[in-house]
C-alpha cells in the first residue's frame, strides 16, 4: 500500500524561475490496486513518481509504503520495496551488460549482494523460460548485450525484470511513450498480464487518456501538483476519452478562474 500525504515540492525556490511542482498532493493506493495517473505537461506526474521512487526529495509531506516511512530513504534503499520501469528504454537497462546479467541484477533488487556468481546455470534456465513468455525470440540471445535490442524489446525485458523480485509497489513512468504504436500496444498488454499475474500494486503514469482508461482499475488526474480527479469502479467503467477531456477542461477552467481571481 502506498500512502502519500500532503507532498510539497518547489524547484528553485526564491528565484524568478520558481516552480511549485507539488502543492499538497495526497494519494492512497491500497494493496493490489492498479492506478493510472494522467495530467498535462507540468501537472507534477513525473515529479510525483520521482518523489515516490526517491530520486526527488520532497520539501514536506510523507511517503509510506506498507506502513514503512520512506520519506527520507535514498533510492537504493526504497528499491527493496519499489520496482520501476523508466520512460526511456535505455534508462531501465544496462546496455553494456548482457540480457542475463541485467536480469541477474534485477533478480537481486534490494537484496544483499554477495560474492557468488551472478548468473548460475539454474538461474539462466529460469530466465530462459521467463523471457520465452514474451514471444520475442530472446530466449536464445541471453548472452547478447542488451544494447543490441530494440527499444520495445528492452522495455519488455525491463517489465519482466521488474517482476523478478517481489515488490510492494510497481512504478511505470510513461513506459510506452517512446515506442511506436504497435510496440506500445504490445508493452501495455504485457504490463496488464504481469501486473495481474503477480497481483502487483501499481502506479502507471501515462500521457494517453485512452491508455489510462483501458488498463488498471482506477484513474487519477493531476493538475498543478494536486489530485483533481479520482475515478474508479462503476463511474470509470462508463467513461470515455471525451468524458475525461471534458472533466479536464472543467478542472483547468476552474484553475484559470482561481488565477483570474488572484490577479484581479
Amino acid at each position, binding site marked *: 500500500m502506498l500512502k502519500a500525504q500532503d507532498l510539497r515540492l518547489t524547484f528553485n525556490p526564491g528565484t524568478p524561475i520558481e516552480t511549485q511542482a507539488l502543492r499538497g498532493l495526497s494519494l492512497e493506493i491500497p494493496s493490489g490496486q492498479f492506478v493510472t495517473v494522467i495530467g498535462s505537461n507540468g501537472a507534477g506526474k513525473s515529479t510525483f513518481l520521482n518523489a515516490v521512487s526517491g530520486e526527488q526529495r520532497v520539501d514536506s509531506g510523507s511517503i509510506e509504503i506498507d506502513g514503512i516511512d520512506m520519506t527520507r530513504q*535514498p533510492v*537504493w534503499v526504497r*528499491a527493496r520495496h519499489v520496482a520501476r520501469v523508466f520512460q526511456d528504454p535505455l534508462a531501465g537497462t544496462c546496455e553494456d551488460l548482457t540480457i542475463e546479467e541485467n536480469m541477474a541484477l534485477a533478480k537481486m533488487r534490494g537484496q544483499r*549482494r*554477495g560474492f557468488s*556468481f*551472478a548468473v548460475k546455470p539454474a538461474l539462466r534456465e529460469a530466465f530462459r523460460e521467463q523471457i520465452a513468455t514474451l514471444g520475442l525470440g530472446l530466449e536464445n540471445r541471453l548472452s547478447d548485450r542488451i544494447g543490441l535490442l530494440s527499444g520495445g524489446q528492452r522495455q519488455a525485458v525491463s517489465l519482466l525484470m521488474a517482476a523478478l523480485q517481489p515488490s510492494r509497489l510497481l512504478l511505470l513512468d510513461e513506459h510506452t511513450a517512446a515506442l511506436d504504436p504497435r510496440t506500445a500496444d504490445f508493452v501495455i498488454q504485457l504490463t496488464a498480464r504481469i501486473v495481474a499475474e503477480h497481483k502487483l500494486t501499481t502506479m502507471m503514469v501515462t500521457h494517453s487518456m485512452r491508455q489510462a482508461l483501458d488498463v488498471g482499475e482506477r484513474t487519477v488526474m493531476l493538475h498543478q501538483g494536486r489530485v483533481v480527479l479520482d475515478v474508479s469502479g462503476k463511474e470509470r467503467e462508463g467513461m470515455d476519452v471525451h468524458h475525461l477531456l471534458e472533466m479536464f477542461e472543467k478542472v483547468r477552467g476552474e484553475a484559470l478562474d482561481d488565477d483570474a481571481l488572484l490577479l484581479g
Partner: protein
Amino acid sequence: MSTYTLLGALEIGLIFSLVALGVYISFRLLRFPDLTVDGSFPLGGAVAATLIASGSDPFTATIAATVAGACAGFITGWLNVRLKIMDLLASILMMIALYSINLRIMGKPNVPLIAEPTVFNLLQPEMLVDYVFRPLLLVFVVLAVKLLLDGFFATQTGLAIRATGSNARMARAQGVNTGLAVLAGMALSNALVGLAGALFAQTQGGADISMGVGTIVIGLAAVIVGESLLPSRKLYLATLAVILGAIVYRFFIALALNSDFIGLQAQDLNLVTALLVTVALVLPRLRQRNAGKKGG
C-alpha cells in the same frame, strides 16, 4: 634488439599491464577518469621499498603497498561521492597530495634496493637467470590477477559495480548503493596500481619520487592499444586485450628507443607516449568518418 632488451620490455610490459587493468576498471568499467594512478604507482613503490629497506619481509611489503594503493583510490572515490567534488578534480587533488605523502614515506627522494631481498630474488630458482625468471614470475602474477578480476566481475557484487559505471540511475533503482560501488571499484583499481608500483620498485632497484610521472598515460595507452588489437565487449577478452596492449606498447617503445636510425632517446619516452595515445584516440574517429562517407 637483444634477447635481454626483449625480456626487459616484456617484464616492464607485464608490470604495466597491472596498471592498465586498474585503469580499465576506473576509466572503462566505472567511467571515472582517475589520475590518482600517477600518485598511487609511486606510493606502492615507496611503501614497498621503504619497508624492505627497513628490514621487512618483501611479501608483506608488497601486500602493504597494495593496501596503500587501495586506500588512495578509496579516498579519491570518497572525495567524489561524499564531498561531491568532480571526478577528475578529485583524482588530481589526490595525486598532488600523494606527492607529499610519498616523500614523507621515503623520507628522501629515492630509496634504493640493491642488496636487499625482493619477492623476485627470494623465489628465484638457481637454474634460471634473473632476467628470465622475473618476466616468468610476472606472467603468473598477471594471469592470476586477470582470472581473479574476471571471476569477481561476474559475481553479484562485481555486477553491481559494472552496472554503476554503465547506468547509475538504473543501478540505484535495482537497489545498488552506487556510492559504495564507486568506492569499492576505485579501491580495487588503485590496489592493482599500488601492486604494480611495488613490483616495479623491486625489479628496477628501488623507488623514486618521479617514477609515477605519466603512469596514467601509459596505462591509458595500453588500454587503447589493447582495445584496437582485440575489440570485444566480453569482459574476459577485454582484460586479456588490456594486458596484451601493455606488453605490445612496451615492446614498441623498446623498439623505438633501440633503433638508432630514429634517433630517439630515453627522455623522449613521454613525448612518444603522448603522440601514440593521440593517434590511437583519433584513428577510430577518422575511420568512422571515412566509413560514414562511403556509406552516404
